């Protein structure tokens, strides 16, 4: 029978089924004859079982996915605010591009015509108070107020909708 000192280093690999066929046969022959090594293998097996049942009591915090998503900047709120920022900057860029195009392109004359038209409309609006009766001014003021309230209500609803929407992708 081979000595325990020689066999002991193989017991761990034997336990894990990681020994070659001939080494496994040698260990088994030794274990059949050596109570000390049999006890050692049993004890190591028990330790492994104890470690496994101990580890099963360990649980990561339930909010770990959220922590990771937040750290990666991928939480719902962040995705949403980033998308709103994209829309804002895209609109801004489009507006600037349109203004530049209107000024620099040959079609600028059309822009000039539109500008003069808008100017005429503004002048007419300023001239309005002197050309109509005071009653009509009251009506116009009331209409403006109604349009303003309606616009603000719509804007508030639109903002509320974008906040409550769940954006994932």
């Amino acid at each position, binding site marked *: 029978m081979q000595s325990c000192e020689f066999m002991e280093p193989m017991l761990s690999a034997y336990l*894990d089924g990681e020994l070659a066929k001939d080494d496994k046969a040698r260990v088994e022959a030794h274990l059949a004859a050596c109570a000390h090594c049999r006890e050692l293998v049993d004890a190591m097996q028990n330790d492994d079982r104890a470690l496994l049942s*101990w580890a099963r009591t*360990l649980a990561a915090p339930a909010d770990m996915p959220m922590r990771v998503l937040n750290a990666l900047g991928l939480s719902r709120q962040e995705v949403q605010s980033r998308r709103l920022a994209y829309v804002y900057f895209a609109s801004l860029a489009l507006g600037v591009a349109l203004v530049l195009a209107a000024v620099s392109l040959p079609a600028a004359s059309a822009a000039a015509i539109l500008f003069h038209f808008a100017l005429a409309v503004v002048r007419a609006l300023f001239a309005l108070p002197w050309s109509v009766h005071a009653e009509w001014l009251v009506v116009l003021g009331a209409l403006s107020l109604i349009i303003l309230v309606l616009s603000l209500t719509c804007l508030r609803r639109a903002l509320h909708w974008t906040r409550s929407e769940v954006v994932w992708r």
Partner: protein
Amino acid sequence: MEQADLELIRRARHGDPQAIETIVRNYQSFVYRTAYGILQNVADAEDATQEAFIRAFRSLGRLREDRTFPTWLARIAVRISLDMVQAKARRAQDPTEEIHGSVDGGEDAASLRIDLERALAKLSPEHRTVIVLRAVQGLEYDEIAQVLDIPIGTVRSRLHHARMQLRTYLSGERGDS
């Protein structure tokens, strides 16, 4: 790994938050238990788990073979945990100080847990790591070799020494023969 897991990894690579959330849920116990086994401290293990996932998802583009994701993730978790152990050692803090509780020699679950944690804490970080990867996570020797970037022969001898030491410490804690 199943096809659904591979699909999740592919989606996570493109930054899909739902896929990332599912992967974290699926692997958080695996990573946390590895980290806790090495660090022996709840707060550190939570930090290491979070950091492991963050690093994994940030460098997911460099993962060549999606099927190796679990081993690759374990490697990241082990590296982070061992780095934290080293950092703690530099601050001269003994990990055994983190383990509280008394042992009356009873065989209930709580005292067994304390025995195990005390015995594990006495092992070197390298021995703790290898025993956790094998006994807790059930990794094969070749997978452990990949995770730790060491030859398979070293895995075998390190695991043998780790188990023998753990046996000695547990015998001391429990008063076994």
